[in-house]
């Protein structure tokens, strides 16, 4: 069991009378980039919040171990101090907080060099952005990049990146892929959550999530192929499914 940096087993989460996670089990090895693929509404973000310990996301059942330690009762702060962090799909904005201060918050030893390196890693110019506030004046894409830079600057042991590619133009997807590999190269494991199958090749291992369940685990190319060719939204699958099957529920 201790070979995995993160081990989640049989997670069940119910919110508002609806079962969001239905027995999710996930294992991420140290140094691994793990792609979690699934359509919108499949429960990927809820899983991310559950792993991070966000308010309202305490599972009714299941365990989460981080580096062998049961973290299910730990606060977000305690989990972060163990080396776990999350980049939100839609990052928060902070009126009055400059990018450089925001980046420094998560760094054990804040240094300008590391901040500049982090911004450059997400293709933002340090001279333009370090003194800008993390507020509404930033576009969604800029804010997203700054969030990724903050996580990268932090050097976490495991970074959960929730849809890091959303709000980023298609031509820049390679930047995100390179950043993820760079993080892995510096020893950070990554849980890459995405609904874009073209992001999956960056991963070492992958899983497919559907309606709160992990329905497939394995080689990223195989999981991607399965997602691309077999998965349709449930209502589409129901209307086109030939007798004997062909499409999977998703």
């Amino acid at each position, binding site marked *: 069991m201790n070979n995995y940096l993160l081990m989640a087993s049989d997670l069940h989460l119910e919110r508002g009378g609806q079962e969001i996670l239905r027995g999710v089990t996930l294992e991420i090895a140290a140094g691994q980039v793990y792609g979690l693929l699934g359509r919108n509404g499949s429960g990927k973000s809820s899983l991310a919040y559950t792993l991070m310990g966000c308010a309202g996301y305490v599972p009714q059942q299941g365990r989460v171990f981080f580096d062998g330690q049961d973290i299910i009762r730990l*606060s*977000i702060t305690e*989990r*972060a*101090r163990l080396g776990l962090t999350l980049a939100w799909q839609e990052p928060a904005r*902070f009126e009055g*907080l400059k990018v450089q201060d925001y980046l420094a918050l*998560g760094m054990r030893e804040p240094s300008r060099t590391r901040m500049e390196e982090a911004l450059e890693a997400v293709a933002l110019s340090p001279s333009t952005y370090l003194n800008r506030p993390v507020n509404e004046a930033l576009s969604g894409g800029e804010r997203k990049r700054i969030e990724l830079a*903050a996580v990268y600057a*932090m050097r976490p042991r495991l970074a959960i990146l929730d849809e890091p590619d959303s709000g980023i133009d298609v031509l820049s997807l390679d930047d995100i892929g390179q950043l993820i590999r760079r993080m892995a190269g510096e020893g950070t494991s990554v849980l890459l959550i995405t609904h874009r199958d073209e992001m999956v090749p960056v991963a070492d291992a992958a899983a497919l999530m559907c309606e709160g369940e992990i329905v497939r685990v394995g080689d990223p190319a195989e999981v991607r192929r399965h997602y691309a060719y077999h998965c349709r939204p449930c209502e589409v699958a129901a209307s086109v499914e030939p007798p004997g099957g062909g499409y999977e529920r998703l």
Partner: protein
Amino acid sequence: MSDFEAILKAYERSGGDPNFFRSPKVASLVISGNRVLGANQVPGVHIVPEEIEHGVRVKVIVEPEARLDVPAHLCFGVIPAEGVQEILPEFEIGAGAKAEFIAHCTFPNAVKVKHFMEARVHVGKNATMKYNETHYHGETGGVEVIPKAEVTVDEGGRYTSEFALTTGRVGKLDFDYVVDVAARGVAELVVKVYGYGDDVISVKETIRLNGEEARGLAKSRIAVRDQARSEVIGATEGNAPYARGHVDCIEIVRDQAVASAIPVVRVRDNRAQVTHEAAIGTVNKKELETLMARGLDEETAVDVIIRAMLAV
């Protein structure tokens, strides 16, 4: 330690640089209680203080077309634990002049101190006045501060005031500024206060846009926690053609604190436009969790969010 050194030391603790008061090139004024400990004039600026029973009456005149290369520095304080201080300033900024004032009001040992300021300000035609006032009240909450100002901005003039009380206890604050703005004039009032314990905060900002194309912004950023109370009244009147005004209030509330905001917009000319926005609430959950996911504990994360808001 002399009274002069004691007040400068308190000034330094409140975030100011005491060296400005030792420089002959910087216009400055130092008042402790009702005593004038220092006043320095520079070409184009006249500072005429007069000690009165409980404070100081002071006339500050900036000559027309004068330009202050370095902001004038003002220091008001009461060092003993108890006392009353009345500051009655009169600012006359001549036409076309440009002047900036940095004021620090410090009451580091206050147990029962009352600081009362009643200012009259006249910003002449096409003149600019910027007034930044920072308070430090110590940690006991034994201060009552009543800053009041009546400001007149002539045609094309510009008046900017920023009042900050974000370090140490507030005690009781009753802030009341009224600005009348003539044609093409601009007024900007900004108040930032962080209250806790049983602090009581009252902020009234009134901007009357009386001239054509006059513009005004009444902005407040307030944070309260524990049992603190705050009430903000931001009022802007559009009384002339093409006047443009805005009231902008954000308050963060924690614990058992209570905050209220009353934006008042009044338009007397159908070509004028005045808008307002007010938001009161607790710290945004996503902002909080984002900072906690960087390793900050909840208390520190809240403080970072509040201080960032107050920095705007």
